[in-house]
């Protein structure tokens, strides 16, 4: 029974991660936009939804006590707008500038979360976030299973929507832009416009994931949204294979299993005062893993066909595959 409950809890967390990864896959896998500040967009979603749905609190702005669904849509809206603004600012420039700017967004969101006490509750975060099925909290198993059901539903909806999008004319334009920008532009597609859209939708999905997470734990704090989160999600996408939505989901579950498993292992193997150090070794291992996958198997488990290298260097490596799949 306990095991089943833990399994449900584990999968819920893994699926919330996979939502973030799906958002990143739309930005990076499909469109080739590099987001190193995704923790910031997740945080924006979590805080927006928390502000909208928590009961009134004299110490800070809001909360407005609105229904949870309103919170989730609000989160997507604000996250999408934030991502769109980031995109508008940088997408006419070199791709590195987007990376640096998203990194900056995450830093600033972290600062606001820590310091704008009136808005975010400062370092102590926001508590009393309403939980769907909060009434079931007495029976943990039922509570965990109903959470899992909700998260699975949301993940499935987002997954199907993204699958549909990537096959739609819109998705094909994005792929065309990623593969050969000049050719796509010559067909009359505005590269910047499409990219801003993709970046905004991806940001909205990340924000939704943040909101979901906030409503299942019932409490959020700035510490939840450190650069380590960004890093975890990137590893999930790369392991699963960027470009593939199913890869994003499976990669997330797999990496989260490794992460949680090795975390449990270190807590057994190391004494309490050594745990912080062991945890940092865990990050070293995952960082090395990311680099090794990039070197050895850049397409991950379920990767999209290899991108065409700009100067056709890799075209001879996998000519059949690219024809077979296109």
């Amino acid at each position, binding site marked *: 029974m306990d095991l089943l409950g833990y399994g449900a809890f584990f999968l819920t967390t893994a699926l919330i991660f996979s939502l973030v990864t799906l958002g990143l896959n739309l930005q990076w896998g499909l469109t080739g936009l590099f987001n190193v500040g995704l923790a910031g967009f997740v945080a924006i979603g979590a805080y927006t939804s928390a502000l909208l749905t928590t009961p009134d609190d004299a110490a800070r702005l809001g909360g407005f006590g609105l229904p949870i669904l309103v919170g989730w849509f609000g989160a997507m809206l604000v996250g999408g707008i934030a991502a769109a603004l980031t995109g508008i600012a940088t997408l006419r420039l070199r*791709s590195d500038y987007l990376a640096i700017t998203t990194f*900056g967004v995450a830093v600033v969101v972290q600062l606001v979360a820590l310091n704008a006490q009136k808005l975010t509750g400062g370092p102590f975060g926001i508590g009393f976030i309403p939980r769907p099925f909060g009434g079931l909290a007495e029976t943990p198993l039922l509570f965990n299973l109903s959470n899992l059901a909700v998260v699975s539903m949301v993940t499935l909806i987002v997954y199907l929507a993204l699958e549909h999008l990537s096959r739609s004319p819109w998705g094909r334009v994005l792929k065309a832009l990623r593969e050969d920008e000049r050719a796509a532009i010559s067909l009359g597609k505005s590269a910047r416009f499409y990219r801003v859209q993709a970046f905004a939708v991806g940001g909205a999905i990340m924000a939704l994931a943040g909101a979901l997470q906030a409503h299942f734990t019932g409490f959020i704090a700035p510490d939840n949204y450190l650069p380590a989160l960004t890093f975890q999600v990137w590893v999930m996408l790369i392991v699963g294979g960027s470009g593939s939505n199913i890869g994003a989901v499976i990669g997330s579950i797999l990496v989260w299993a490794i992460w949680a498993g090795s975390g449990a292992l270190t807590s057994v193997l190391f004494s309490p005062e050594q745990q*912080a150090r062991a945890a*940092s070794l865990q990050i070293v291992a995952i960082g090395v893993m990311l680099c090794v996958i990039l070197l050895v198997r*850049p397409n991950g488990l379920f990767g999209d066909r290899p991108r065409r290298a700009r100067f056709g260097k890799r075209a001879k490596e996998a000519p059949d595959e690219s024809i077979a799949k296109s």
Partner: protein
Amino acid sequence: MSLQFVVDGLLAGSMIGLGAIGVTLTYSILRFSNFAHGDFMAWGAYATLAVVGAIGAMFGKIAPIAPLSFGWPLIAAVVIGMAITGLLALLLDMVLFARLRAKGQAIIVVMASFGASMALRSLLEFIFSSRPTYFSRAIQIAMPVGFGIRITPDQIALLLLTAVLVLSVHLLMTRTQTGRSMQALSQNAALARIVGIDVAKVVRVTWIVGGALACVAGVMIGILIQIRPFMGFDMLLPMFAAAILGGIGSVPGAVLGGLIIGLAEAGAVQLIGAEWRAAVSFIILMTVLFVRPIGLFGVRER
């Protein structure tokens, strides 16, 4: 508003500027933004700290040089630390970046540098723990120099050191064959290869110069503030902002950008409080991207 922020800003600007030189060189010559550059700073500082410890173990306690808080062991250690950090950068390039570069996808290299940055920083946390340490716990008396400004001997020495380093890098870039090759490669890589420039050598020099300067910046932070594994990562945004503000590829631009950001940060600390310091570089970065994305001394890309 007291004028003290000028000194604070110049010091912060020196650290940012020294780091930004490395960022701008990697960006213009190797064509990727290196997210691990901040961690070179932290590694430089810890390497220097370790060498200082080793010297202390060999020669016993050595008195600091008159008004300064440190003695010759630190000066010797910085030189060794610079070499270690340069080698670390070379090693990382050899096992990771060079191989990915050969595959021809610039943005994958950026991602790899992000992963490497995470691993390097956590490795420091593992070896030295996340507790902050110091080169010296001695407290220096700041001397008043007029206009309400106070400055410590350490600060004067470090400002002078920055000036010397920046001048020598500038001379390296403009007066030596290697420096001119570096400029050529950054301006037009294909043409540079055609005229027979030794690309591998230029890449090596770029990493060594970038790593060595990052080490000095890290040691400066260690002397004036403290040493901790996240010290370099926190400098990343100001460094990127400085490199872009100055114009990618321009060494004087990177230093000037660093000084501007350092002064703006110090001013903001006085006006609105220290907790918002990190937002300053983001605002400057966004302004530059909207108004003049090629920066102060940048050239339009071909």
